[in-house]
């Protein structure tokens, strides 16, 4: 098949070259249209369901809202985990599906289940909604509005009805969450004393208000000629009109809503607040749709904002369009990545010119790079991957192999052409080029597939790591396969076209000559002291292994995003007002530091927002001025110092992407997590405390924590059944009245143009300010008698739960801890034993051990299994190629030594084995494998085809012939990655930096191994036989 492809390419070289030009052109076009991002989509298929349950306590939300929804969702095929939280007024459920499942289908199935449950939820609870599907990073822009002229309510109305609506119409925007300001409502603020005065109940007011705002359709009149529409008007549209609505006629006069209540525009009870640069304002978080191009969406949103700016400033609204702009980091990261790639490419060209010392051959080899990479880009684009730091990284590490593919080809063709010129009856160039291409090709094909197989563990990595790094693997494999294709088609065609008819330089390139002249004696020297050399290698390998214990794992490096998200949390129950007050102080202190450009605070939550935060939690968007990495680090220390001076709250500083990734990791980051499942919340708490007590006494336990926040102040109103009956009340009526009084009851909507505002009935603010007021709430029974709430109910203050958590639709309480100074498995075993012996769990309660350690162990096991499969595959592939167990063993035995350089590089950079570094090892493994295969194949070729007898002479000749390609591949890869390694901490290079360092370190040992040790070992232990004696070698197999 290879023969057919190569000969076709040679025969129709014009077509092939034209095709490759088209390919390059289309590749460039794709590149200009490509979707850029920092990371691939890393979130697993997830559906988040939020249900607003105004006024319900966490326990009520859990029992009445969360549990029924969970029950209906449970059993949907493909669910991996089901977690939920119930806080005051909100239920949020996160359903995570198996990776690889279609998110749209998952949403469809969940949506079907939700449609059946919506009608069964308690009155007043809104329908459950799935939050819009957004990209993994979600936020594309945070913008702020403030105004000195407008009231918070007017500002919020503009944000909700002008800015938000405009932004939602921008293609690619999934949702806009609005924090802060005051949501306008028409409120009927009932005054209890007036109710008594006019002998009315709150229910009367509700009924009348409902009727006053009702809208009815009217139909139409059909006559012989026309259909005439009917429209009825008369609904109250202003507070004044509403206030004049008559409730009842008494003594000949009408008692109106205005008599018993104040009717006015007032703010809805808030769930969130925001401040920009310390001034109260409105913060809008714009999220992009799933799979949208962040840069493009950002640009379009900014265009829309530009259009809005004149109207906004005319109304006295100041717009802060760049509170947070993730596109900045994407641009910097991609730019850095691209500059690294370009710089690398430039260095590659120089290296090729130096080594080949021939413009033509260098040009042919260089052509392979853009062609292969652009092909890879096109494939990635078709597969739906964005161009991100990881796919670009994959391309960067592929450059070496891409060039190697071409060079092997070009070199062999050049050599055979030269030889052909020397013989008397030169064969046609076509035939020579075809044979020369095929001669090396089969080994290259096997080597390429082997290298692709090396990446199998990377492609099959589970979790976020897998989703982050598999695109890198795919980019790498695509580039390498594309390069194989190019080497099979374009390179021979170009060689025939450019080299076929020209006079060829007979002399070897000076660099190669110079190198070979020095390499020979070195290699001979090595071969003369095999024992010492092998001993040295073993020692060196042991030294590398000795460094292993000092190497620790880490998941994500610090990202230099130029933006921090500062979390501030006070004890649950802290009011929005207090959170904002402290936030203002924090903001002013932060703005005093010289590094910070802007600070915006948001507290609490917004409808359909990504984060579920209580009123005690705030997030600050802290944007830095442009600065160097060093400054950014000291900026963070400064910020930490400033924040540590605020009592009563804890802060965490994160970067946006780190936070997003951590959020998708879901669950606790502690190494041991004990989940306690059960029905009784108090019992769960008690058992959790017992378990925490036992854990903290086990040696090695550190940071033992019960994962439930302190209680939040609560006022319990417990109806006394007897009193309720005796006084002629219906319990539900009493509860309704309390809800109306303190939460407000939305009775209708008022339309103002295209804007819709709720009309709600609520107690006047002065009557719901203090705890004492609630007992004095007057209630009217059907007989017209008034009683105060405290006559019907016991009212007492207590401490309540802030949140009720579920896992797998069951109540859960978690105890987490870390383990220091001992093996985690033995710790978990001991903990299990001691807890089993000392904690008695009642029926229905059970424990589950989990945690990061378990998850890591699982992913390590997965990785090991996949690596084993890949390893077996590689061995089988090699056995087809080599058919000689000894040579196969030679290839394999060398690998550990090749990796030692990488280990030492990791050690020298602080000993942190990030996943990037792990991928570096994989790449290194691939490069070494490929070089070893090529070397051994070349020996086999020399012996079996060219008829040399195996001995020092053959070994040295083979090695010298491979010297240039190996050195070239190594230096091309090294130089291509050098800019990445040097700017390791810079934006966009944080993940590939460690990878590049590992590869660079490893290349040193790997190259030394391939050039010095492998020939020596091959000479001693290798087994190469001439063709006549016993046909061996992959070359023959494929050629026949």
């Amino acid at each position, binding site marked *: 098949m290879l023969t057919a492809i190569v000969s076709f390419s040679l025969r129709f070289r014009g077509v092939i070259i034209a095709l490759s030009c088209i390919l390059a052109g289309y590749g460039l076009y794709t590149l200009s249209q490509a979707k850029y991002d920092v990371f691939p989509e890393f979130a697993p298929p997830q559906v988040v369901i939020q249900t607003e349950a105004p006024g319900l306590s966490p326990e009520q939300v859990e029992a009445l809202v969360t549990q029924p929804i969970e029950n209906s969702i449970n059993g949907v095929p493909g669910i991996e985990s089901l977690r939920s939280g119930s806080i005051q007024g909100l239920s949020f459920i996160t359903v995570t599906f198996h990776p690889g499942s279609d998110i749209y289908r998952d949403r469809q199935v969940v949506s079907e289940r939700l449609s059946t449950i919506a009608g069964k939820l308690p009155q007043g609870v809104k329908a459950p909604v799935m939050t819009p599907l957004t990209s993994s990073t979600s936020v594309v822009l945070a913008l702020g509005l403030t105004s000195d002229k407008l009231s918070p309510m007017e500002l919020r109305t503009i944000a909700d009805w002008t800015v938000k609506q405009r932004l939602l119409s921008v293609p690619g925007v999934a949702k806009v969450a609005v924090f802060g300001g005051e949501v306008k409502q028409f409120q009927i603020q009932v005054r209890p*004393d007036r109710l*008594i*005065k*006019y*002998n009315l109940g709150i229910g009367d007011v509700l009924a009348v208000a409902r009727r006053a705002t009702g809208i009815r359709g009217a139909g139409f009149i059909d006559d012989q000629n026309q259909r005439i529409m009917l429209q009825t008007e008369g609904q109250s549209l202003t507070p004044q009109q509403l206030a004049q609505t008559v409730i009842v006629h008494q003594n000949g006069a009408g008692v109106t809503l205005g008599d018993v209540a104040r009717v006015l525009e007032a703010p809805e009870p808030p769930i969130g607040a925001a401040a920009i640069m310390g001034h109260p304002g409105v913060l809008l978080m714009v999220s992009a749709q799933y799979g949208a191009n962040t840069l493009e969406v950002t640009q379009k949103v900014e265009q829309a904002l530009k259009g809005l700016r004149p109207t906004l400033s005319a109304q006295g609204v100041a717009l802060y369009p760049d509170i947070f702009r993730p596109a900045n980091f994407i641009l910097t990261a991609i730019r850095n990545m691209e500059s690294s790639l370009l710089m690398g490419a430039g260095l590659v060209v120089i290296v090729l010119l130096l080594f080949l010392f021939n413009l033509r051959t260098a040009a042919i080899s260089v052509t392979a790079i853009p062609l292969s990479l652009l092909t890879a880009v096109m494939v990635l684009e078709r597969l739906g991957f964005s161009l991100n730091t990881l796919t670009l990284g994959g391309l960067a590490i592929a450059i070496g192999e891409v060039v190697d593919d071409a060079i092997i080809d070009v070199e062999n063709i050049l050599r055979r052409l030269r030889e052909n010129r020397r013989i008397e009856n030169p064969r046609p160039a076509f035939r020579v080029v075809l044979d020369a291409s095929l001669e090396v090709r089969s080994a290259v094909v096997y080597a390429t597939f082997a290298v692709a197989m090396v990446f199998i563990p990377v492609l099959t990595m589970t979790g976020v790591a897998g989703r982050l790094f598999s695109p890198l693997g795919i980019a790498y494999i695509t580039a390498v396969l594309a390069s194989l294709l190019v080497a099979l088609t374009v390179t021979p065609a170009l060689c025939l076209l450019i080299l076929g008819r020209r006079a060829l330089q007979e002399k070897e390139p000076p660099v190669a000559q110079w190198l070979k002249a020095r390499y020979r004696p070195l290699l001979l020297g090595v071969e003369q002291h095999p024992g010492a050399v092998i001993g040295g290698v073993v020692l060196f390998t042991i030294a590398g292994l000795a460094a292993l214990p*000092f190497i620790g794992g880490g998941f994500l490096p*610090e990202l230099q995003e130029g933006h921090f998200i500062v*979390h*501030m*949390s*006070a*004890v649950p*129950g*802290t*009011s929005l007002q*207090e959170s904002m*007050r*402290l936030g*203002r*102080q924090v903001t002013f*202190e932060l703005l005093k530091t010289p590094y910070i450009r802007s600070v915006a605070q948001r507290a609490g939550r917004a409808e359909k927002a990504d984060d579920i935060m209580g009123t*005690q939690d705030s997030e600050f968007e802290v944007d830095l001025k442009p600065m160097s990495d060093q400054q950014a*680090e000291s900026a963070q*220390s400064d910020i*930490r110092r400033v*924040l*540590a001076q*605020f*009592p*009563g*709250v*804890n*802060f*965490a*500083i994160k970067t946006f992407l780190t*936070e997003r990734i951590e959020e998708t990791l879901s669950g*606790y980051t502690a190494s041991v997590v004990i989940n306690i499942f059960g029905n009784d919340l108090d019992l769960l708490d008690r058992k959790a405390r017992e378990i925490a007590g036992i854990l903290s006494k086990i040696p090695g336990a550190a940071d033992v924590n019960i*994962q439930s*926040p302190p209680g939040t*102040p609560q006022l319990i109103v417990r109806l006394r059944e007897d009193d309720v009956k005796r006084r002629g009340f219906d319990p539900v009526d009493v509860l309704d009245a309390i809800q109306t009084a303190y939460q407000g009851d939305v009775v209708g909507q008022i339309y103002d143009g295209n804007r819709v505002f709720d009309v709600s009935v609520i107690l006047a603010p002065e009557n719901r300010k*203090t*705890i*004492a007021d609630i007992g*004095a709430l007057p209630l009217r029974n059907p007989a*017209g*008698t*008034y*009683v*105060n709430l*405290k*006559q019907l109910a016991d009212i*007492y*203050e207590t*401490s309540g739960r802030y949140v009720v958590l579920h896992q797998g639709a069951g109540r859960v309480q978690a105890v987490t801890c870390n383990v220091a100074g001992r093996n985690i498995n033995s710790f978990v075993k001991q903990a299990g034993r001691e807890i089993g012996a000392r904690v008695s769990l009642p029926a229905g309660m059970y424990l589950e051990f989990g945690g990061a350690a378990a998850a890591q162990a699982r992913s390590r096991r997965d990785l090991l299994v996949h690596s084993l499969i890949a390893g077996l595959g590689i061995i089988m592939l090699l056995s087809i190629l080599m058919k000689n167990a000894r040579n196969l063993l030679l290839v394999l035995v060398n690998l550990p030594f090749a990796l030692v350089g990488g280990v030492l590089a990791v*050690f*020298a*950079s*602080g*000993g*942190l084995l990030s996943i990037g570094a792990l991928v570096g090892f994989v790449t290194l493994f691939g490069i070494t494998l490929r070089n070893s295969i090529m070397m051994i194949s070349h020996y086999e070729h020399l012996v079996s085809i060219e008829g040399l007898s195996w001995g020092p002479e053959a070994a040295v000749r083979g090695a010298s012939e491979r010297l240039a390609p190996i050195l070239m591949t190594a230096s091309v890869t090294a130089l291509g990655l050098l800019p990445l390694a040097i700017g390791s901490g810079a934006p966009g290079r944080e993940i590939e930096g460690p990878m590049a360092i590992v590869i660079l370190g490893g290349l040193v040992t790997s190259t030394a191994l391939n050039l010095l040790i492998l020939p020596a070992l091959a000479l001693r232990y290798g087994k190469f036989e001439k063709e006549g004696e016993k046909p061996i070698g992959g070359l023959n197999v494929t050629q026949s």
Partner: protein
Amino acid sequence: MKLNKKSLMVVIVLIGVSALLIWAFMGGRREMAKEQEREQPVKAPSRVSIVDGESVVTLSRTEELKSGIAVAPLQPVSHQAEIKAYGTVMELQNLVDLYNSYVSAKAQVKKTEASLDASRREYERLKPLHENNRNISDKTFQAAEAAWRSNEADAHAAQAAVHAIEATLRQRWGVVIAGWLIEKSPAFARLIQQQEVLLQTTLPPDTHLASAPRTAMVQTADSKLVSAKLVSRSPHTDPRIQGMGFFYVASTQPGLLPGMNVIVYLQAGSRYQGVVVPAPAVVWQQGKAWVYVQKGTGQFIRREISTETPVKDGWFVLKGITAGDRIVVKGSQLLMSEESRSQIQVGD
């Protein structure tokens, strides 16, 4: 020797490389430790200590200033509880009707008494004549006796009618107003002449008073406050409200017309000396109310207060804190949060 030199070189190079590696490792470790620290939540050391069983939060001056905690001394306040009651301006037609009946009953008594007197005298005149040899006929004597007895019964009946009206008056309007009416007191005249209005005032259902205060303040329909004088306990309650009732009189106002429902403020109970804790100073935890008292520089002690006596914008407190104590009026929640800060999870 040559070999030795060579090996020496190799050894030196190896040592150099190892040293370099280890140095780089240490540097990298330091950098990593810093990075790891940066990833940790900012958790300042706890500022809470327990002194004499009370938890004390200690802040430096800068921390106090930066977090905007404000402290204010408590002023001594004398306080008397005030009850908000529901008043109705009484329609007095019934009272006037009763008065009319009373007056005519009284007249009837007089009339019957006059008749009784006349017939008694007639009887007493005829009696000796009849006894003395029957100077008058038996018939005449018996007729006079019957007239006397009949007039006596009429007089009793008229008196009973007066008593009945008095009883009705007392039942409906109380002893005091009945007294006014019987005694034709000027207070009653002022009511009848509409110089004053009568207010039936009903306490909220679950409020009890041993005796009503002598004066009260009435909020008129036009939101003016006028003073009212206690008349008496009301003999019945407002059926809608079911609380204790009292009658007050107030001078006639445009906003106090018969039939109007108004709010009446009653001062009740004894007057106490204490302090008023403003609402923003109070935080709730574990079902109790607390304030933070500043002791010394930057030391804040949490004290429980009683919230039995709510007053406008706060609570009147007798025990636990005294006038002159400096309490935190802004940032109490922050201090409370500091106490349980170790349990606060951030950024999860």
